[in-house]
């Protein structure tokens, strides 16, 4: 916990890793942030990297330009397109590691995060969710649905709902759909009575110790629940559990709900009661696709529904366009010339989709807001995969 040592290590890491950058600028063509802003060098991956790199070298972290530095570093959505490109055709710099380290550094120095994000962090610390909502209200989404509450009761699967699906009224339908599908499958599952944030926004914004605090709390709860499998609504929680919680996968099977359902329905003939004659396109969430290579199970689930015609947008799978919600940008307004989610809706309309489906609460929210802002409610709908299944099965 020695702050001096931590800061020194963070700086050394950024310098060491950052110096591997060849300045080839190939990453710029992949970066959604760069594409949607005014095209300044500092708005692209290598530009962000060099900003923090030189700020350290020239000892300007806390200087008069610290607010610009903060804005540069916190604009990234952490979609990973840059890293994938760099690995594919250039030096293979783990750019997101630098951004994460840079944010930890700025946060320790109280230069970051953005002021609106501060509230999200304080809320996670006080109430276990970034929305400033009372912890007591976390299960209100379930309404009249009955399911096991862990750890009082025991089950083999934990459905980890996540903060957004729990507290955002528009996402309650998604959580309820997942529950109905689990019940339909006869899965022995339960939900935590006192679920708290997975901590993903915390580590994204750079508070290492608060993140460790959330990890400890969650590990305790998972242990007490005595489950074998954890199924998440959000790819962000999924990613955090898989990659940032130490060796959680040694003790629990960790699945995103699309993976879990695709496996559970394989070989079973789901008796669909309603034909959904929709032309749908699937928006790959960055944290499911690019970060965890899960592209096919969601598509399989869609193709299974009778009547669905699946079309692909021009930027799909590993080339998917980020919705703009990751990297802490759900909690703060960042200047953009064109909103990423608006562009994405445009891409969906281009291929004739009447429904754009996704498998992430943040993508859902960003895309839904875009449809409203563009006044396209008559032309396209945002639906989550679980909701479509529930509709087709008439649950």
């Amino acid at each position, binding site marked *: 916990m020695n702050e001096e040592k931590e800061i020194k290590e963070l700086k050394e890491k950024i310098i060491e890793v950052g110096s591997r950058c060849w300045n080839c600028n190939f990453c710029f063509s992949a970066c959604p942030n760069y594409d949607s802003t005014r095209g300044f060098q500092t708005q692209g991956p290598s530009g962000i990297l060099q900003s923090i790199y030189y700020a350290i070298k020239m000892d300007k972290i806390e200087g008069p330009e610290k607010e610009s530095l903060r804005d540069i570093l916190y604009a990234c959505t952490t979609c990973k397109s840059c890293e994938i490109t760099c690995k594919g055709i250039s030096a293979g710099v783990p750019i997101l590691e630098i951004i994460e380290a840079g944010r930890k550094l700025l946060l320790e120095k109280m230069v970051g995060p953005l*002021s609106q994000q501060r509230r999200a962090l304080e809320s996670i610390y006080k109430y276990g969710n970034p929305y400033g909502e009372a912890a007591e209200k976390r299960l209100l989404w379930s309404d009249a649905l009955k399911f096991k509450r862990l750890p009082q009761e025991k089950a083999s699967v934990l459905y980890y709902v996540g903060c957004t699906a729990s507290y955002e009224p528009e996402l309650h339908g998604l959580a309820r759909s997942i529950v109905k599908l689990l019940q339909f499958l006869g899965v022995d599952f339960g939900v935590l009575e006192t679920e708290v944030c997975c901590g993903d926004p915390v580590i994204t914004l750079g508070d290492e*110790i608060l993140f460790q605090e959330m990890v400890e709390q969650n590990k305790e709860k998972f242990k007490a629940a005595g489950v074998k499998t954890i199924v998440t609504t959000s790819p962000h929680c999924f990613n955090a559990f898989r990659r940032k919680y130490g060796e959680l996968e040694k003790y629990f099977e960790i699945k995103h709900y699309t993976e879990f359902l695709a496996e559970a329905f394989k070989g079973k003939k789901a008796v669909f009661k309603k034909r959904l004659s929709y032309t749908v396109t699937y928006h790959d969430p960055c944290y499911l696709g690019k970060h965890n290579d899960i592209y096919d199970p969601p598509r399989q689930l869609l193709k299974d529904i009778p009547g669905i015609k699946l079309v692909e947008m021009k930027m799909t799978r590993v080339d998917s366009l980020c919705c703009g919600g990751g990297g802490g940008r759900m909690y703060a307004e960042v200047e953009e010339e064109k909103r990423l989610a608006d562009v994405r809706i445009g891409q969906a309309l281009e291929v004739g989709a009447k429904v754009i489906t996704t498998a992430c609460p943040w993508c859902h929210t960003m895309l839904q807001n875009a449809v409203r802002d563009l006044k396209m409610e008559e032309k396209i709908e945002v639906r989550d995969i679980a909701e479509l299944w529930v509709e087709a099965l008439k649950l």
Partner: protein
Amino acid sequence: MKIVVCIKQTFDTEAQIALTEGGRIDDHSVLFIVNPCDEHALEEGIRLKEKKGGQVTVVTAGGQTAPKVFQHCLAMGADHAIWVNDPNLNGADSHSYAVVLSRVLQSLEYDLVLCGRESIDDKSSQVPARLAELLDLPQVNLVSALSVDKGKAQATRDIEGGTEIIEVALPAVFSVQKGINEVRYPSLRRVMQAAKMPIKTLSLVDIGLTAKEVVPFSVIEKYVLPKPRKEGKVLSGDLPEVISQLIKHLQEDAKVI
């Protein structure tokens, strides 16, 4: 520069407000935080310290959550913390707090005193002015911008429909608005380390005050829940219909236009 920031511990505004059986505010499960405007005052003090060098002292009176709340202040960058804790402060009002704070300040050296413009629970907005009066200092309230140079301060004060630029020689008392700055976020690491910093705790006797001197000038006789609003109407139909319905209601029922 020696800067003193006066802090109040307040309810978290997200909290549900309930009355106990005795008709008092039920605060047993409520989180206490630094009053938001006071946080901005502290941030302003720390920024002045960073610019001009010096020390920031936070002071609070009463309440039981001062240690936790001070942890946050010290993590942000305050250097010293003083808590006046005394059972005779139960039922303290703005006058009582002002008396206590003025007595503490009389024992300190300072160039300026910063407060938040009002507390989010009480919203009386009296302490800064009462404090300035007791210290016989000039006051500037509702400050949305502040700069200090050569023993003088220039403050922008919000008034209805605009602002005033005021110049005053230090020392002086300022109460600040939320919009004056963006408060910094101290990492949990900083907050935990701040727990190790000492807090000076004083009783009334320690600052030479008797219970009589802090008797409040006002007493809350009763709390009542406000009358609930009447149920509203949802206007539906096609647009021209809805608009004429609305205008009719506003003219005839509500009589507001």
